[in-house]
């Protein structure tokens, strides 16, 4: 008898969307949160825009010590985690802590603090033999990516399997996928999962500048992120964190929990093609979708909505369109497919989890979030991208896909429970 996995709590810190109500308000109204970078002086960069969170950790209950110790991306995870646990109604004090796991993703982890302290110890890049006496007291926590899962596990006193997952831009989907398998395989009953990243920093912006992956639409930040539009010219950097509480379905039902949806399939494959390049056929992403559908015991025609990776680079959106057509066949043309990166930007490792929260909300509200800024069709991207305006639709099963550096292609399937749960 296979163990089924329910989503019973969600929490989020997204640009102009801190907390689930604000986040859904942004998505369902098709607003965009992209703007000129304010965190540092971006002069000299090709892309000087981003979707920033106006986030004050103190307002969200973090104390001075947590704020000092924790990098921004970990603060996001703590705040989203609080919201998700509260939302789930779980009383962790009565749960067996050895059966509670944590699986959190991040692409670039503590790089913001790593860069901050680097500037100090290197005298602004002047010396290779850096001076350790200038380093801050929490640098080692930024160095170790496991600080993310560890800090969240400590906060919620989880003692089961705890891991940080870092597969670049598929980190969020993969972290949730690992959590799903962890519960399905019986290694935990509850898993606090999701992802977080705060990559709006000089080094990370310069990184993507160097490969021209980010949009140079500096004059019109609000309309800069244009997934699937013919005039798209790169992604807009974002930041944020999302946490989902996954729970074995019977465990959730036994305590009368609200079940947002089930996670019923997850798969990831490598394209073995190029670290940043994508094929035009998207066969590996198609394979991930097919594998996830098999696990969910669903036919492709059961998919009611595709939450796209939709980064807004020329190659990604073509690749993904081809992959979805390959996997869903003619049904792809009847299936709305949208990219919330048009609104909240691309927060690297975090976005996959943010998108899964969007999927859970889409299922809850029976509303498909739109692709903002979509105006001019691209002949090579010929699916229904839900231009600019959210759409009511009967949703039972939804698919979220992601694609990342390293060639990773991941897919997650979420569906409303097939029987009434409460």
């Amino acid at each position, binding site marked *: 008898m296979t163990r089924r996995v329910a989503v019973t709590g969600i929490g989020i810190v997204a640009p102009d969307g801190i907390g689930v109500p604000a986040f859904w308000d942004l998505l369902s109204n098709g607003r965009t949160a992209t703007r000129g970078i304010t965190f540092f002086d971006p002069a000299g960069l090709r892309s000087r825009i981003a979707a920033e969170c106006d986030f004050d950790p103190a307002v969200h209950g973090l104390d001075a010590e947590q704020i000092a110790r924790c990098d921004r991306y970990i603060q996001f995870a703590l705040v989203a985690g609080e919201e998700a646990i509260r939302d789930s109604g779980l009383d962790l004090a009565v749960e067996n802590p050895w059966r509670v796991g944590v699986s959190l993703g991040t692409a670039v982890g503590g790089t913001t603090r790593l860069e901050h302290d680097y500037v100090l110890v290197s005298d602004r890049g002047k010396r290779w033999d850096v001076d350790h006496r200038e380093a801050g007291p929490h640098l080692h926590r930024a160095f170790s990516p496991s600080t993310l899962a560890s800090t969240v596990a400590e906060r919620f006193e989880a003692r089961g399997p705890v891991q940080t997952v870092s597969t670049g831009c598929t980190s969020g989907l993969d972290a949730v996928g690992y959590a799903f398998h962890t519960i399905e395989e019986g290694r935990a009953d509850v898993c606090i999962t999701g992802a977080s990243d705060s990559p709006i920093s000089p080094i990370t912006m310069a990184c993507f500048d*160097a490969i*021209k992956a980010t949009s140079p639409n500096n004059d019109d930040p609000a309309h800069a992120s244009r997934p699937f539009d013919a005039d798209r010219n790169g992604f807009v950097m974002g930041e944020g964190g999302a946490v989902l509480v996954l729970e074995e379905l019977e465990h959730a039902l036994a305590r009368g929990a609200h079940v947002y949806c089930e996670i019923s399939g997850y798969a990831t494959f490598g394209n073995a093609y*190029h*670290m*940043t*390049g994508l094929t035009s056929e998207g066969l590996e992403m198609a394979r991930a979708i097919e594998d996830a559908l098999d696990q969910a015991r669903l036919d492709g025609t059961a998919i009611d909505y595709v939450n796209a990776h939709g980064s807004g680079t020329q190659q990604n959106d073509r690749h993904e369109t081809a992959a979805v057509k390959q996997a869903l066949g003619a049904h792809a043309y009847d299936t709305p497919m949208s990219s919330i990166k048009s609104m909240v930007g691309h927060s690297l490792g975090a976005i996959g989890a943010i998108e899964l929260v969007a999927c859970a909300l889409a299922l809850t509200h029976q509303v498909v979030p739109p692709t903002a800024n979509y105006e001019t069709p691209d002949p090579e991207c010929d699916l229904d991208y839900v231009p600019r305006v959210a759409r009511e639709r009967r949703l039972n099963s939804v698919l979220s896909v992601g694609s990342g550096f390293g060639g990773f292609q991941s897919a997650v399937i979420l569906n409303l429970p097939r029987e009434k749960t409460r």
Partner: protein
Amino acid sequence: MSDRITVEELAELMKKAAGVTVAPEELQQQYDSGFDALGIDSLGLLGIVGELENRYGTPMPTDAEKSKTPRQFLELVNSALLAGA
């Protein structure tokens, strides 16, 4: 530094920016073969363009990084350098 990029300089840039060694004579022979056949990927070409822009302090045409062959590439960047001079 001359105001024209030679095959020698391109070979040196390929080595520095992408880690691919091709002797200038060989590069001359493979003037019309694809960069991919020479082992230069899209990131490598971006690196070469970036290196040139930093060296000469002038932006290169955006199509330079999409050049398929050494000939195409050198013609493009040299015309840009000539126009800038």
